[in-house]
């Protein structure tokens, strides 16, 4: 059965359980037009056709039995604009910065952690940190390049009596450092908020008192996955012998703060590491890191064994 027939069946089924008979040929035709011809996303097409039918048959929205979106794991959320359901634990709640948002924060299951937003218009009772819920009929979205889920009017939040595990926060990675990003090396931070200054100006406090710090924002890649990592001064010093004082000396000698970054790049890029760190929403905050020390003869030997 093709995708459009599947969706058609879903819609027909939904109206049937509410006691209405609808013409499946008609629905199929409308869906096909929207999806194949006009390239409307599936979720929107289904909603459009459903709305049309409700108007046509004069069905009140409350009477239509909600069709549950498929239960999904957080790691599987990859494309925005899909209707899904999640069983997840509320990891953290943040202060909402907008009157349109009643709650915002992070939820997680055993596969990952994702940001969630509850619109004020959704009119839902608030969720609590640490508790587990079923988030039914929520919509995936991407904001600032990261995936999130939105809770809207048609969603349903139901407290669960389940113990949902979160992914281990500590992660061990073996891979190569393949990029070192902007704002690495010898940087300056704001005394008040510790944010990194660009051109000696804090994004919040403007021209302020500043202090020096050494860190690396980079990408470690193992050929299957990549991890955005942050190394602090201690990590950098352990790997290179360059701490904050040495970094300042290098900058002085060359009359250029960027020379520190060049030096670190030439010593760290392209090498393999074994590292342990705590996973944040985006970055892996590194605790321990060392150059990978491998017994070549043993590794190569066991590899050659695979040919037999």
């Amino acid at each position, binding site marked *: 059965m093709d995708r459009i027939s599947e969706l058609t069946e879903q819609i027909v089924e939904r109206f049937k359980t509410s006691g209405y008979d609808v013409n499946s040929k008609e629905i199929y035709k409308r869906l096909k037009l929207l999806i194949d011809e006009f390239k409307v996303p599936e979720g929107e097409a289904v909603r459009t056709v459903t709305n049309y039918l409700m108007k046509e048959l004069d069905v009140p929205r409350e009477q239509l039995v909600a069709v549950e979106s498929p239960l999904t794991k957080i790691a599987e959320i990859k*494309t*925005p*604009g899909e209707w899904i359901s999640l069983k997840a634990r509320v990891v953290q709640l943040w202060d909402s910065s907008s009157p349109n948002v009643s709650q915002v924060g992070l939820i997680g299951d055993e596969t990952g952690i994702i940001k969630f937003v509850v619109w004020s218009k959704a009119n839902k009772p608030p969720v609590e940190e640490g508790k587990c819920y079923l988030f039914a009929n929520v919509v995936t*979205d*991407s904001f600032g*390049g*990261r*995936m999130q889920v939105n809770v809207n009017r048609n969603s349903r939040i139901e407290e669960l009596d389940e113990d949902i595990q979160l992914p281990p926060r500590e992660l061990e990675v073996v891979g*190569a450092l*393949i*990029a070192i990003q902007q704002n690495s090396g010898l940087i300056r931070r704001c005394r008040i908020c510790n944010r990194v200054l660009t051109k000696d100006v804090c994004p919040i406090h403007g021209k302020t008192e500043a202090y020096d710090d050494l860190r690396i924002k980079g*990408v470690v*890649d193992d*050929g*299957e*996955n*990549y991890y955005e990592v942050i190394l602090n001064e201690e990590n950098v010093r352990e790997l290179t012998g360059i701490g904050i004082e040495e970094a300042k000396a290098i900058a002085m000698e060359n009359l250029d703060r960027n020379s520190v970054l*060049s030096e670190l*790049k*030439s010593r760290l*890029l*392209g*090498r*393999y590491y074994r590292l342990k760190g705590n996973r944040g929403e985006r970055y892996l905050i590194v605790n321990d890191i060392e150059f*990978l020390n*491998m017994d*070549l*003869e043993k*590794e*190569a*030997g066991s*590899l*050659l064994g*695979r*040919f037999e």
Partner: protein
Amino acid sequence: MNEQSRSFRRAVARRVFAFELNEATHRLESGDKTIQVLLPTGEACSRIFFVGVLLDREETRPDSDFWRVRISDPTGVLRGFVGRFQPDALESLLKIEPPEIVAVVSKIRLFEGERGTLITLRPENIVPVEREVRDYWVVETAKRTLDRIENMRRGGEELVELAWQVYNPDLDSYEERVKEAVKTILDQHSAIEAARKEIEEEEEEQEGEEEKEFEAEEPGEELEIPDLEDLEFEEEEWDLSDILGE
């Protein structure tokens, strides 16, 4: 929205030997602007992490700041271009005197010309690295390549089926080349280790003689370097003949 979110997700850097990448000719339609090629072992690839020997760098025209590079691993040679749109790679490239072992992070380009297609690199970073990094890279890349070969034999996945259709690769000969690469590295490694041990033993014997000890203050380094260069040179020759044969 869709495109934007995709551009934020980095492409993973694949580990692939030169011989395999050079055989890739099929561009995958990905909907956005990123260029992806299908590897003959059935995986999409738009970025690589590669460790090999920078054989030469040559400015395409005088003062153009556009450099042609050739980088070799034990299985073959990759060609690439570095220009002002790769500022990090350009800066470090100009400081390197080939031949030298380098780690390269690079995007892939596919030239489709009259006489067929050609894979070239657009390096984001080129950094001189130690021999141990190269050794590990060969082992890791061998492992990844074997995994892909096994995956091909199992069949079923969409890209795997496409690779069978497009390339119909001779997986046995692929395996043979991977095996050769690992052996080459292992032999070289053992030779160097043996030489190092010999030197250490000699040192111990000479320990009584004060003069000698003074002379060889950093014996490990001093004696290791000529060894290393010898071996690398051999490798370069081998690779050149490989190209001529093609």
